[in-house]
């Protein structure tokens, strides 16, 4: 039997989380070291899985399958393909850097890391699962620690409101999707929740058209689709740094990914039928999100809304139902994940020093934290889709896909690029290069070495992927082949 690498990846965080809970509360350093060790381990394994995936062979690899609830046809079934391998890696990366960035948390770090790791397990689980029930199982596991993480360690002003809003939104979305999943289960008559089986169920067109919106939008809520994106900026802003990173970096991908896996892949006819509508919604996401981001004064809200805009692109790529669109979305999920993690890390570092996120009250941080400034610039360039960075290699195919299906959408959507550029430049100029406000004089210090490691790591990935898209694109392409096959080569 081969080494159950996916299971090990899934359960490493939760085991570490439980272990951490067993430490006495005062042993903060031990807690942190354990957390870092576990995160490094998970990252290493996900890297290994990512690079040992055999692209030529394609399909699902590292498959593990056990009966879980055989009477209902529920099994523990995990596998890696081209679509989820980058996301697995992304989760590893964000987890690792998240732990580095959170080193300084002093209020109950034990609980913090434990909850964070439970969340990570949920995320890993959703990405690699091939069973519909399991998907919901892990999905919920990923959602609820968010509530505690935000409400306990979040920003005092809004954390209670934001945490509750976020949890309820996501929960609503997932349970609505769950009803759709149950409908699929019973209609298929196959007595199985195995998605690979359900793919072959041959649902009637009417059925698919009826249920697709429920499933797609249900998950789309977590993907931040307009008009259900509302939870997301509030949640981002209220969350502590590492949680924002996880949240925007990974969790939103969870929604998009599940919308793809369950919505598009299991209900392809429904997808074809509804795509015009979806693409309109995502267009609003892309343009409106960017616009709203550009008029924000709160640093974190800017990033929060930019996530809405970028996630709109991911979903837009799906909605094109074209090969290039899917490839772009696949890469964009990874790229945006890393980028936004970087952004939130930077925002957190700035906030930690300045104790304000009000952009007009910030300035001149370059002098004190040059590395942070450079990292933010890299993130900003990715965000505006600057060639040479990963954002470009992701967004370009998305737009190409859009051209193939709805050219006018591409033209309107492209406006967001200029808007994004304008606000990113504004922030760079003001926060990092502008004049240091007097009240901050002498209060700003450079970040720690661990922070720098995290920043370099994240920016490095963005540049590397931008220069060598080959590192990821063929992999994603192999995954997309499968999606296209289900769509019947639209």
């Amino acid at each position, binding site marked *: 039997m081969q080494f159950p690498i996916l299971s090990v990846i899934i359960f490493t965080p939760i085991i570490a989380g439980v272990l951490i809970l067993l430490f006495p509360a005062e042993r903060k350093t031990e807690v942190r070291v354990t957390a870092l060790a576990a995160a490094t381990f998970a990252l290493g394994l996900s890297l290994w899985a990512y690079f040992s995936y055999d692209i030529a062979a394609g399909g699902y690899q590292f498959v593990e399958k056990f009966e879980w609830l055989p009477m209902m046809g529920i099994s523990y079934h995990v596998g890696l393909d081209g679509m989820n391998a980058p996301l697995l890696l992304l989760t590893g990366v964000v987890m690792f850097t998240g732990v580095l960035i959170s080193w300084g948390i002093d209020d109950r770090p034990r609980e913090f890391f434990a909850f964070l790791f439970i969340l990570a397990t949920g995320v890993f689980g959703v990405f690699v699962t091939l069973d519909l029930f399991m998907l919901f199982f892990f999905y919920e596991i990923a959602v609820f620690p968010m509530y505690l993480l935000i409400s306990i360690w979040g920003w005092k002003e809004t954390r209670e409101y934001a945490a509750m809003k976020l949890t309820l939104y996501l929960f609503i979305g997932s349970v609505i999707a769950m009803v759709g999943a149950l409908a699929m289960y019973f209609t298929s008559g196959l007595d199985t929740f195995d998605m690979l089986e359900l793919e072959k169920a041959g649902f009637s067109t009417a059925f698919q058209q009826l249920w697709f919106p429920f499933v797609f939008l249900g998950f789309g809520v977590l993907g931040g689709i307009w008009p259900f994106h509302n939870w997301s900026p509030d949640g981002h802003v209220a969350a502590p740094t590492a949680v924002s990173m996880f949240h925007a970096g990974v969790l939103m991908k969870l929604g998009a990914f599940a919308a793809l896996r369950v919505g598009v892949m299991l209900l392809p006819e429904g997808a074809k039928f509804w795509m015009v509508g979806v693409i309109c919604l995502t267009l609003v996401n892309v343009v409106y999100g960017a616009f709203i981001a550009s008029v924000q004064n709160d640093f974190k809200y800017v990033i929060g809304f930019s996530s809405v805009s970028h996630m709109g692109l991911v979903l837009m790529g799906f909605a094109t139902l074209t*090969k*290039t669109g899917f*490839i772009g979305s696949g890469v964009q999920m990874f790229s945006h994940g890393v980028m936004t993690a970087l952004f939130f890390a930077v925002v957190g570092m700035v906030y930690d020093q300045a104790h304000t996120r009000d952009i007009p009250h910030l300035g001149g941080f370059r002098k004190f934290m040059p590395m942070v400034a450079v990292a933010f610039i890299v993130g900003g*360039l990715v965000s*505006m889709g*600057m*060639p*040479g960075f990963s954002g*470009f*290699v992701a967004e*370009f*195919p998305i*737009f*190409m896909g859009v*051209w*193939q299906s709805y*050219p006018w959408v*591409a*033209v309107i959507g*492209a*406006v967001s*690029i*200029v808007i994004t*550029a*304008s606000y990113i*430049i*504004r922030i760079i*100029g003001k926060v990092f*290069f502008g004049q240091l406000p007097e009240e901050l004089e002498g209060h700003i210090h450079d970040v720690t070495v661990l922070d720098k490691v995290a920043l370099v790591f994240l920016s490095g990935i963005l540049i590397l992927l931008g220069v060598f*898209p*080959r590192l990821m*694109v*063929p992999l*994603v*392409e192999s995954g997309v082949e499968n999606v296209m096959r289900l769509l019947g080569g639209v």
Partner: protein
Amino acid sequence: MDFISSHLLTLILFSPVFAAAIIFIIPREQENLIRWSALVLSCIPLALTISLWFGFDRSLEGFQYQEMAVWYSAINSSYHIGVDGISLTMVLLTAILTPLSILASFSIKDRVKSYMILFFLLEMGMLGVFLALDLLIFFVFWEFGLIPMYFLINQWGSEKGEREIWGGRKIPARTYASFKFMIYTMAGSLGLLLAIQLIGVVSGTFDLPELYKIWPMLEKPLLGLPVSTVKSIAFWAFTLAFAIKVPVWPFHTWLPDAHTEAPTAGSMILAGVLLKLGAYGFLRFVLPLYPAESNYFAGALGFLAVMAIIFGAFASYGQSDFKRLVAYSSVNHMGFVVLGIAAAAHSVGSENANIAMNGAVLQMFNHGLSAAGMFFLVGVIYERTHTRNLNDFGGLFPLIPVYGGILMFTSMASLGLPGLNGFVSEFLVVRGSWPVFTVYTALAMIGLLFTGAYILRGIKQVLHGPLNEQWVGHLSEINTREILVMAPLMVLMLWIGVWPAWILDVINRAVAMLF
């Protein structure tokens, strides 16, 4: 050696990155070491380019030294680079101007390390644009070049000056200028990006030589519209992007701001190379990909070019800021490039076209030399006087005769004095376009007249007239480093002016192939 010759272009393209990496590991306190290493390292691409220049086979048509590697397989974009006569000229220009700019930047005191790194990245971006034979790779470098330039202006631009933006808020002029530069160019690129996507979607490839064959021949309706409509839209998307970059009137307003606020070396590169990117785009992409549309719309383009020439000259004449004067002169001079291109597009295949085109490409090179020189000279006097206001100067010739001489020489080259380089190219352009756009060309001659006027006015205000007493004893002569910067430029100006064949030879072959 085999490796070098087979990957020469890649080496040229990425040696600046290598240089940047080396600078990166030098401690920031070692400023002098950084400066000298930068200078030495910037000679690597120059040396390689020179070997390329001599290795380039002038008798062959088409692209040489081609290299191809997988880059983005999913959308059929590959790392495909190569040179022909046009791009070779531009690469040479870039490679020459970079070390000179670095030498000119020795006076930079603030954050030398970051400055040099950005400079090398900028060079890489520019070289990439000239070398790319893949539409997507081209775009990558096209956009990438913006970033370092933005920061060079934003961070090392002139520290004085404020601009009022809407709402009455005042922001530093360099912030304003850099932002304007970025947004203008990005907005222009947007259409370009969309058009590139369209082409990619329709043709299934981004490879330029292949697109040359497929795209112009495309017949079937696209996106439910007649193919000609779609192509016209795409043509204008390309044209707009390049027109902003050149810049052609009325898209030029970013240029005076950016030039004025940029640091001296930044202005040199900006005027010397970056403006050429736009014109190069016309030559490399617009004409071959849209022969029919170019032909059809050439008149409009020619009109814009003439307006650029005339208004550029007028505006330049009206300036009291020395640097702004030079900046507007760029609009004026680049207008000739576009005029040549428009004329060539309008009379495809004729001898006139060939001449105009040769003129345009040569004008690009020449303007690169003279504009870089002019901006440097403005920088030299600014460093000493901390003012660029022409009214503050006057009668400085006796104080700084060497500087005066160099300024006169460069101005004359810029003005188009026979015997110097400007004359050759402008003459070729005018000669080529006269039979094609007689009226436009005639109007352009008025512009040329004013070119003479503003340049002479500039010289007069700085060097001649009553001596402004405040500078006596405060103004030092141009120093050796600065002369070293100017010397190669002047040599080239003279050389091309006297014997342009060596470079026209290279250009001509490529231009002939273009049609």
